[in-house]
């Protein structure tokens, strides 16, 4: 799949997920602490939504960073190296983020 298509698909997904995320998590603003998050995160559906959200965010962010870098001519010969680095960073961040989402258990 082309980076362009990855950006388009993840962008459309993010518009939906980010709207949900902003309204549910951050609006209206409040002092965030563990107890408040745990109530919502106890629902497995929210965990699933957040994991999918994380996937698209990482895809969009890393593909976007790759595009910004490879648009500069002197970096273009490194585009394979950048792509490899983006995949590695993406996998590590996805593993860490998923672990974090799952760690929100009521009796920690």
């Amino acid at each position, binding site marked *: 799949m082309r*980076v*362009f298509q990855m950006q388009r698909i993840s962008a459309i997904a993010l518009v939906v997920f980010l709207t949900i995320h902003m309204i549910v998590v951050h609006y209206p603003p409040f002092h965030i602490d563990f107890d408040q998050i745990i109530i919502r995160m106890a629902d497995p559906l929210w965990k699933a939504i957040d994991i999918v959200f994380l996937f698209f965010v990482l895809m969009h962010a890393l593909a976007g960073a790759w595009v910004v870098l*490879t*648009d500069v*001519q002197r970096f*273009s010969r490194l*585009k394979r190296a950048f792509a490899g680095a983006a995949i590695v960073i993406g996998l590590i961040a996805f593993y860490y983020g998923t672990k974090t989402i799952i760690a929100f258990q009521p009796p920690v």
Partner: protein
Amino acid sequence: MGNNSTHPTAIVRIQRFNPETDAKPHMQEFEVELKPGTTVLDALHEIKTHQDGSLTFRRSCRHAICGSCAMHVNGKNELVCNAPLKERLDRHGRITIRPLPYLPILKDLVVDRSSFWEQYLRVKPWLTPPEDAPEKEFRMSPEEVAALNNAETCIMCGACYSSCQIVGLTKEYIGPHALLKAFLRVMDPRDSIPGERLADLDGTDGVYRCRTIFNCIDACPKNLNPTLAIETLRKLAQKREAFEQARIERQKHLDEPIPAR
């Protein structure tokens, strides 16, 4: 010329650069008479003839058709032969002329356009007719001509190419001028290799390098729309095989009269 004239004058600021003596470009001001009907190119000629013969710029036809005299006037790319001097003056009666941006300057207002032509050749800008071409004229329907969106009127002046920030970042990008030409050939029912063309453009240097900045539309002196051409090529690249098949079908009827509607 000069002081006893009754004509008002205009101040022409020109970016000068002589590679033999200058380390970097600098601005120089000239004063020219503002006669009725003076174009920006006329002002440059006036300066070169009467004030400074070393001023270097490209021009040829003076009728906005050769594409030689595209320059960066007051922050916009345009053909100076087609630009009325009076309308380009700011409230201090000044005009600023620079060479086309994002390209290496050779001297004064002349830029090195090698990358422009190299990228142009990359898209195979010529028409490739079918091998068993009939010995008759080919016929295109009015709809097929309309779909070209006047792309055939491009004069290759380089105004769009050098207005593009992505060209400024990387000369590996094919560029709006060549993509517009590729669009023209792909949409042309007489062309027999649209699939091959779309495959060539379907890369990070091609249609996917465009960031939809729209500068090419603003810059084009012929009111063409390279951005829309690129967006169209992007969509066609997704359904390349179906498009190629439709072209093969279409070319079976190239020499037949277009049915009346």
